[in-house]
């Protein structure tokens, strides 16, 4: 509960920062919106409609008040309320990023642990090599290569989109479309998690309590799982929280490459169309969701580690 209250200043800070950045737009938004229709009367009217004739703090408070009531303004390029569009798109982003996040957490920890437990063997070297490639390849390039290989040449998965245009829309169809983008998105994060897991496991293997477990005659496998991994997960958890941000960020590229109808693609389109209100709403909404996600990670950390309970 306290943790939730502590989110309030962070959320406020996020709104202030976004508001300030957006307000610093060079030039006149009204002119940008109206384009060649920018007669002085029209400009004045738009300014009044958008509340741009008021002072900065006033505008911020009005905007904040609207947000609290769930009103993120109206997108002029789509001509619909920002919140409706964002919610719809965020759903798609959540499916993609969520899958990638789960994938990178499990695979990363698994691969990192195996690598540490087999340190300096061929397996370890092979994993380290793959991880190195994984963290070096830009996700958008990887996505393109995957489309070329698995969709165009091997025809295993659809080229792009979230659902098939004809006869799609059910869960198997979604999964079929989800495989490639989620893997492309997960690869970099998996590499990072694997590296950190490997180091964490190596560090923990040297601890006195692992020696105690060995002196007790506990089997190596249970030492690795119940003694080493148990602690490793607690140390890796904050890294996973951080990785979630990277996965969410990476989803922007992946959504473009795979034509996934998510928030990222919406934001890029909105920027290119100069639909500032949509950008503003989307950024604030997703950032606030991310803050709450990190709180959840924090709470989980407390549950798993009795020392900081």
């Amino acid at each position: 509960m306290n943790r939730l209250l502590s989110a309030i200043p962070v959320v406020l800070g996020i709104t202030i920062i976004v508001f300030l950045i957006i307000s610093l737009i060079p030039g006149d938004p009204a002119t940008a919106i109206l384009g060649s229709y920018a007669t002085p009367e029209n400009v004045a009217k738009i300014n009044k409609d958008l509340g741009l004739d008021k002072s900065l703090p006033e505008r911020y408070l009005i905007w904040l008040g609207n947000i609290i009531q769930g009103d993120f303004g109206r997108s002029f390029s789509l001509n619909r309320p920002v919140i409706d569009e964002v919610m719809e798109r965020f759903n798609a982003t959540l499916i993609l990023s969520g899958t990638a996040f789960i994938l990178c957490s499990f695979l990363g920890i698994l691969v990192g642990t195996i690598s540490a437990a087999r340190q300096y063997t061929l397996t370890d070297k092979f994993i380290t090599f793959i991880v190195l490639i994984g963290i070096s390849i830009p996700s958008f390039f990887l996505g393109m290569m995957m489309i070329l290989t698995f969709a165009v040449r091997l025809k295993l998965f659809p080229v792009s989109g979230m659902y098939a245009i004809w006869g799609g829309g059910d869960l198997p169809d979604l999964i079929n479309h989800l495989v490639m983008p989620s893997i492309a998105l997960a690869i970099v994060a998996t590499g990072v998690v694997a590296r950190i897991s490997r180091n964490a496991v190596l560090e923990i293997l040297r601890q006195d309590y692992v020696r105690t477990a060995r002196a007790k005659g506990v089997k190596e496998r249970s030492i690795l799982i119940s003694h080493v991994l148990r602690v490793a997960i607690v140390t890796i958890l904050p890294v996973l929280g951080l990785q979630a941000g990277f996965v969410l960020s990476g989803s922007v590229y992946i959504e473009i490459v795979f034509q996934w109808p998510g928030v990222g693609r919406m934001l890029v389109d909105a920027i290119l169309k100069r639909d500032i209100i949509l950008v503003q709403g989307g950024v604030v909404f997703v950032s606030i969701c991310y803050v709450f996600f990190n709180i959840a990670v924090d709470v989980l950390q407390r549950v798993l580690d009795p020392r900081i309970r």
Partner: protein
Amino acid sequence: MIDFLKIVAKNRLAAFGGILLLIIITLSILAPILPLKEPNITNTADRFMVPFEGGHILGTDHLGRDLLSRLLWGTQLSLAVGFAAAFIAATFGSILGAIAGFYGQKTDNIIMRFIDMLMAFPYILLALAIVAALGPGLFNALIAVALVNIPFFARNIRGVTVTLANKEFIEAARLSGMSNFRILIVEIFPNLLPMIVIAMSTTVGWMILETAGLSFLGLGSQPPQADLGSMLGEARSALITNPHTSFVPGIMIFCIVMGINLFGDGVRDALDPRLKKGSLIRPLPQTIYEGGDTQPQPSTKLLSVQNLSTQFHVNQDIYQSSNDVSFEIQEGECLGLIGESGSGKSVTALSITSLVASPPGVIKKGSVNYKNQNLLALPYEELRSIRGNKISYIFQDPLTTLHPLHTIGDQLLEALQAHDSELSASESISKSKELLKSVQIPNPDNLWDVYPHQLSGGMRQRVCIAMALINDPELIIADEPTTALDVTVQAQILNILNSLRKERKLSILFISHDFGVISQLCDRVIVMYAGSIVEEGPVKNIMQQAAHPYTSELIKCVPQLGNKEHALYSIPGNPPSLNQLPEGCAFANRCKYKQDQCLKESVPVSSKDNRSYKCFYPVGGVA
């Protein structure tokens, strides 16, 4: 600096990364003078030529522009933008961090709050918001990427500054009347520089990738100007028909980022002292044994350690930790093992069941005869069935030796179930609780679901003793079990051990550096110095009259209650370094009675009655 480069060069991967980077940077810098075609001349008749067609080494793109030329110019642009972003982020981030760390208090609070806010964003959203405000364009993308990375620098540099600001030389500068601003510039900044450079080298690859990413999205460089990202973005529409236009910039980005990663890892490893010490190497479940199939001498005793030599191999250095150590423990006997820290007593104790961290530990030779088998050469599964079952350990610091995230109850049950999987759950629990009572824990139920950090040191050590006893072992090896405890608790623990020993007819190998503790508990004692046994015999006799000068010095170290004239004594000098033991007696340079002979000849073992010692000139007329 040259040493540093040598270490990096030794790491083959890092060297490969460095060379790859160097080649790419050189080529991109040379782009203006290389005989390249114009990068921006379109010729739609020549569009989508494959590599080597029509004199285009890498082919042409959708407007018929030469790809090789565009690649090199694009690389130059991408690298320049990435480095510029890193430089801007480093400058502003470091200034903020240094000010926050140096001035502290309110300034620190405000700056760091602001930084925390920035870090609460998923980074790309912040970058997108900035680009949205400033409009698409390479320069704006550069600013966005730089701004987003400021928090990383600010945090790192603040941390370093805080530690620096509390150092003596800063205090001295203050006292000499330097202004805060001057201290910051003259004293602090030069010390921050290496840190800033390292932070830059770890993030520059990232920033190249990020600006390329924004360009890929169409928010960075605008046509006809092209960096690697926008080249890839433009090529995407022809991905299926003409994939080579995508490969060219994509593989270049990959090479740059990989080069930076490899080189950066090499640099980090070279700077990380832990890697030099080899302390990130996984210890094996069983110490490496090079004694082959050494057959131990037959023995009627419970345990017989024979000619045990354990070494540590760290890089090229060999540290001889125990050298030719032999001793025996009878059933029901309590044998003390005493020596200063670093004398090899713990290593000897851990070697018995191959628990020495390995690598770097290696048992070079010797054997441990337990029931006519050599423990050191046992296959792992057989060794495991003895560890904690027939031979169990109590370690020094119960806070680090108990697992922090498991309850006391679970840890006890685990010890029990490791060797007896058929015992039912309720039987296991009642047996564990009984044992807790026998180590004088009055209310085992209250302790059952508690974590180690919630207990006092004395309670923790009782739990450890109970855990060591749980499978009714024949031998307990107690490695300084009372050293981490305060004196009153020490006495309680010793009493518990003493009564348990008599009740259960336990054999104990008790390790300590304190003759006072040894004399309370042990029947016989072994004195170790610099990896070798220097004296052995019944505790009573030795306490009355030690033969080896080292032993008598150790006895002098025991504080005597109520004797004011007996000030706390410590042995002058330090033990010799274990990787270069002197010829002759290892103790000679600290010995009051040394003769020339002691420095030259190796000392034989002399035995008399039930005592033995390793000294040419024993003290107190023992000889």
